[in-house]
């Protein structure tokens, strides 16, 4: 293989048809993800950041084909996932897993922790029954749980421990690639640090590739190598993390950064405040999607949609102007 990309997403679109508002009316379309391109190299972490409703979770789910993409190509290790049939998809899903946001609702309350972690091994029929049990014990110690906790039920664990069970389940099949969908946002601050450290350690030990979805820029800065900022179903800026925080370009990225309360009262960024809320993804604004809330918006922004172009080496932005110099 010439390039080191494990995952390549091209022109990904996910549209949902909504319920008819009237009996004979047309079904409105919700443009959850509307033309997203990114790639992740092996062993690296791409962060998808944005406000709620910007399509970051839908992107993550459709990469695993848990949500069917409407259009676009998802190439995982040279194989186009969109054209795969159920059997082949099951085979390739051994290599890709997901950790969900809420460890309270993503674990079956009637299954023991051990059998939850064993489930993927049973589904994929890996080894003998004894092998599977040994693997479960190994996974428990890998994520920092005691093997004698296998017989306990999810409600007997704390939030942090439950997220460890979810991580163990995701690791069960030795995957190459894991989608982490807001893995720490439901956890307490002190526990967040424990889980983030665990994810970093596992990534180095097992050479994992992460797609890390989060709304928390501080967490993303801590864990990701590359970051893509999403707004209303599209990526508005994409670069490595050093560049993004040192030299943010897109007006939306800069607004996001300035909205985060800083711990040091002395170091206050220049404030950019947005008015109003994120527009409804059913009625996407014409032209640039951000023009309704952007302070630099001009006539051009209302009519023509900007493309995501490489403005500096490795720094992609989708904006008609160079707003950093204004």
């Amino acid at each position, binding site marked *: 293989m010439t390039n080191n990309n494990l995952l390549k997403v091209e022109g990904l679109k996910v549209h949902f048809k909504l319920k008819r508002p009237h009996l004979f009316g047309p079904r409105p379309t919700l443009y959850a993800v509307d033309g997203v391109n990114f790639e992740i190299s092996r062993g690296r972490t791409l962060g998808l950041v944005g*406000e*709620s409703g910007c399509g970051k979770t839908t992107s993550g789910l459709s990469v695993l084909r848990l949500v069917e993409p409407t259009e676009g190509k998802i190439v995982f290790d040279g194989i186009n996932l969109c054209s795969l049939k159920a059997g082949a998809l099951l085979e390739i899903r051994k290599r890709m897993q997901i950790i969900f946001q809420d460890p309270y609702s993503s674990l079956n309350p009637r299954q023991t922790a051990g059998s939850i972690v064993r489930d993927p091994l049973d589904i994929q029929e890996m080894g003998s029954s004894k092998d599977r049990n040994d693997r479960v014990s190994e996974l428990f110690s890998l994520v920092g749980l005691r093997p004698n906790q296998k017989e306990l039920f999810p409600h007997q664990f*704390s939030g*942090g*421990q439950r997220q460890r069970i979810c991580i163990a389940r995701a690791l069960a099949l030795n995957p190459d690639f894991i989608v982490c969908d807001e893995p720490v946002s439901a956890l*307490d*601050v*002190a*526990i*967040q*640090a*424990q889980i*983030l*450290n665990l994810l*970093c*350690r596992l990534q180095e030990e097992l050479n994992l590739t992460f797609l890390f979805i989060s*709304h928390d*820029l*501080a*967490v993303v*800065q*801590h*864990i990701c190598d590359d970051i893509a900022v999403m707004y209303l179903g599209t990526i508005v800026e994409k670069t490595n*993390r*050093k560049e993004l*925080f*040192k030299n943010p370009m897109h007006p939306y990225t800069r*607004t*996001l*950064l*300035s*909205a*985060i*309360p*800083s*711990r*040091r*009262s002395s170091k206050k960024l220049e*404030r950019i*405040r*947005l008015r*109003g*809320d*994120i527009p409804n993804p059913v009625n996407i604004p014409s032209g640039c999607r951000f023009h309704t809330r952007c302070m630099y918006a001009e006539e051009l922004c209302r009519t023509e949609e900007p493309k995501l172009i490489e403005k500096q080496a490795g720094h992609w932005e989708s904006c008609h102007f160079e707003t950093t110099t204004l």
Partner: protein
Amino acid sequence: MNNPSVESENTVLSVENLCVDFTIRGKQVHILSDINFTLGRGETLGIIGESGCGKSMTALALMRMVPSPPGWISAGRVVLNGEDLIKATEKRIRNIRGAEISMIFQEPMTSLNPVYTVGNQIAETIRRHRDVRRAEAWKEAIDLLDIVDIPSPERRVREYPHQLSGGMRQRVMIAMSLACEPKVLIADEPTTALDVTVQAQIFDLLKKIQNDRGTGIILITHDFGAVAEMADRVLVMYAGHTIEEGSLDEIADSAHHPYTKGLLRSMPEIDDDPDDVRKPLPEIPGTVPDLLRSIEGCPFAPRCTFAMSKCRDLPHYFDLGNGRSVKCWLAQEDIQAKEQA
């Protein structure tokens, strides 16, 4: 123990030795132990801690809304403008709630009534506390929506909560809590359910209201960033105890209690110029104690790297001056060392 922060004329609310107990499976559990603090006019006090540390229960106790049974306020005083709320009659407390002290809840969707328009709900609060006509209250509701920066309030006032976005609902909650110009506003995680850009808007709004009216705000949160943005003073809670109190800068720059230090270090923070390699975050080992098991001595001792034999006894508040107090034996050593020097 007396509260170290000096009570002055400026004080609107003072809480003294407040204790809340619950009966859980026939056992008496201390949910809040010995809470002390004061709130001045136009001041913002941030209460920070992990979930289950008793910060929301403190807010409920101030409003006399501790769920009962199983809970009750077992000791202490909550003095608002010279009146002890703990001793107030049920009828009196109902007049105080919403008029003199009001609360913004975390989840704006569940705290608004889905079957009434927002105008109806705001006007109801106004008419409950003041003798005004329906039409007047309605007009005031529109004015309040305008104050909290809701666009076209005449239209919005007729809408139901489900027609509004999360940020707008939280604005409606704020409008409702401001209806009777309360002296104290308790904001219990007001922005946890909201996006960062909306969170910034809500904080700006709260600050503006505080400037205009001199309202004292108690901000309850687990996010130190939010506290740093809003608060003048900070109270750190752990397992039902207030373990440290001080001004924002003192807590941020020179925390004394090992838990405060650990908590602040474990939060990732945005850096304008990040390093190329990622470093592990310093973490606090273990989890918060189960309050069902009675805790002897310092509640943080089992997780504390500095724990010593003395920690088997509960430390009392050590006053470091300037309204700064710490509940840790290490502080005593610091004070002694200073005296000897």
